Structure formats: C-alpha cells, structure tokens
C-alpha cells in the first residue's frame, strides 16, 4: 500500500526505472553486437591478409633451387648410412689378427706350429718343441701378456704330450677371445 497521496506516482517511478534498465540493456546489447561484429570482421581480414600463400610460394621456389644440390645431399646421406653400418660391423665382427700376432710372434725358433684352428671366438693351436723348458717359458709369456692386454677370456692348456717319433713335446692350447 502506497504512503503517498497520488496512487499513480509509484507506478511511474517503476516504469521510468524499467525504461532506464531497458536502455542500459539495449546499450550493452549494442556494444556486444558491435564488439562481436568488429572481432569477426577483423579476424576475417587477418586471415584473408595472412602471408601464408606468399610463404608457400617462396617455399616452393626455394625447394626448386635446392633440387640442384640433391645429388650431393643423397651422397652425404648415403655416406652417413654407410658409416653407421661400418661402425656396427667394426664393433660386432670378430677379429683375430691382433690376438694371433700377440700369440704367434712370441713363438721362438726352437718351437714349431703344428696346427692352428680359428673358429667362433676360439683360437686353438699346437706347438712342438724338443725343450719342455722352452714351452714352459712360452706359456708363461702368453699368460703374462694376457694379464696385461686382457685379450682372452680363457686360456686352456688342452694337452701336453711327448712324441717318440719326433722326440719332441707337443702342447695344445685353446684361447677363448673376449
């Protein structure tokens, strides 16, 4: 219940207040609509004016220029591919040259190499000598050399025998490479 005399007065106030709110709402709506429109037009222009096409054309032109160097590039890439596998082979392949040099270069003149078998990481050979002392010193030398160079995992003295026919001692040795 209104406290004033004019009963219509409060209704006018509420109507004016509503009008004011509506105006504010309309302004906000217009501002938002303008902002959205501006944003979408700006985006459209930005995309339309992007330098992507020009860059793609430039990329094509640069690629075309580079094709002159393709043979060189292929050779470099092939060299790199070969080097990778060469490294792998050198790391994986079993070599015996160094080990054999270490073993057979110390065989003195009064010893004779009877047989030599190399297979699957294993070097086995037999030596003949008339002197057991020579064989003994050879063995010591081989063992000492391996302690220094660490070339073999195992050194096995397979047999020692004496051959009547040749009057010589025969020593069979086995070396397992690392």
């Amino acid at each position: 219940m209104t406290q004033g005399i004019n009963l219509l007065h409060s209704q006018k106030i509420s109507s004016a207040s509503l009008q004011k709110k509506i105006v504010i709402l309309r302004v906000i709506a217009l501002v938002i609509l303008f902002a959205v429109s501006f944003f979408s037009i700006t985006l459209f222009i930005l995309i339309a004016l992007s330098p992507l096409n020009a860059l793609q054309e430039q990329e094509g032109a640069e690629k075309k220029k580079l094709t002159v160097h393709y043979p060189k590039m292929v050779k470099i890439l092939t060299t790199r591919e070969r080097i990778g596998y060469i490294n792998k082979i050198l790391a994986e392949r079993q070599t015996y040259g160094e080990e054999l040099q270490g073993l057979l270069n110390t065989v003195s003149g009064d010893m004779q190499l009877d047989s030599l078998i190399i297979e699957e990481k294993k070097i086995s050979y037999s030596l003949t000598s008339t002197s057991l002392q020579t064989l003994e010193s050879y063995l010591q030398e081989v063992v000492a050399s391996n302690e220094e160079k660490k070339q073999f995992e195992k050194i096995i003295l397979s047999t020692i025998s004496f051959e009547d026919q040749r009057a010589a001692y025969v020593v069979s040795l086995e070396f397992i490479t690392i």
Partner: protein
Amino acid sequence: MNNELKFQLRKAKISLFSFRYSPYFGVFMPIVSFVVCLLLIFFFIIPQLQSWFSVQSEIDATTLRIQNIKANALQMEQSNTQTIEKTFGISTQALPATDNFTNILAAIANAAQESQIALEDFNFSLGEVVQKEEVAEGTGEVVDQPIPNAAPVGDYKLVNIQLESKGTGNRIQNFIHAIEKELPLIEVKTVKVADNRTIIDLNVYTRALPLITVNDTEILSPLSEEEKKLLTELETWPGVN
C-alpha cells in the same frame, strides 16, 4: 479473401500490437541481439579463431621450413664436392652395395702379397649375379629374394669365400691381420692350418643401398667428428681407390 483469413490476419495484427506496446517489448531487442551475438560467436568467431591459429602455426612452420631449405642450400653451395665424393667413395668401398668381385679379389690379393703367402684355390660362394625380385603374396609389394649363398644376415649380406694357401703360421697370421684391415670389410670366420696347408673361410660384408629420401626441410647436419675420424682411418686402409 475469405472471412476466416481476414480474421486470422487481424488477430495476428492485434497480437503484434499488443506485444509492441507491452512492457516486454523493451527487452525483446536486446535479447535478440544477445542471441545473434551468441550465434556469431559459435558459428563464426570460434571457427575463424581456430582457423587463424592454424594459419599462424602454418606460417611459423613454413617460415622454419624456408629457413632450413635456405640453410641446406647454403651448406651445399659451401661444401666441397670433392670431399663429398671422396667420403662417399670410401664408405661405399668399405661396405659395398653389391658383390664386387674385383674389389674383393684385389683385397685378398693385396693381403696375400703383404703377408707373402701363396694362395692356391679360391672358392667364391657369390650366388646369382642378378638379384631376383618377387611379388609378396597378399600385399602385392615387390620384395627382395635372398640370393643363395649370400644370404642376408641382419642388416647385411655376407659373401662367403674359401681360400686355400700354403704358408707358415706367421705368414698366415700376417695374412689374417692384413685382411682385417682391408676394404671392403671382411670377417675371418674360420682358419684351419695343418701340414703347411691352410684353409681360410672369409665373409665379405655387403649391404644394398637403401632408398634415400631427401628431406629438404630438415637441416642436413655435416658429418660429425667421429664419423670423419672413422673415414680418415678407413682411408689409410688398403683397398681405397
């Protein structure tokens, strides 16, 4: 125009007028604006924004690719053709693409000469000279048919060679030492020495050239120091032409 239609039109007109002068009409236009804004945001701005971001990322990627292509071109212009040819030659001689009889024989002969052993019989197990191709069942792809006696072992094909020679133990070990430092790369499989006769079983490594694809948008890095070092070492080995 019949009366019913007239009645409906008048009814609609009255409804429109009553809405136009109702207190809700004031908020109708802002609500429509908001709805239009929302539609614009969801159906135009968001897709445009996504498109703009993708365009930007594509611009960045393209710029980077152009830079890389330019860097590759510059590197190739500055690189020495002779050095590239030389390193390519060394690497393909060390690990040849095909079973090159001449180079293999030259390597063996060179090692034999160096170690002063007399080679008697050669037995090359090279298999077929031309590699066959066959079409794989199902996929229809052309696949390599392994060459008999030069079967692929992992990444390589091994050409097996058996040699017979006369020579003392020292000369044989010199031969083995020499052959392991020859190009193409050779592995000594077995050696059997008895009664001054030696049978040596060797494997020569070969590897077919793969299909090299030049990716010109990635920077082609030059050979590393380790790779250069290996090539320098291989260059000193006999067998390099």
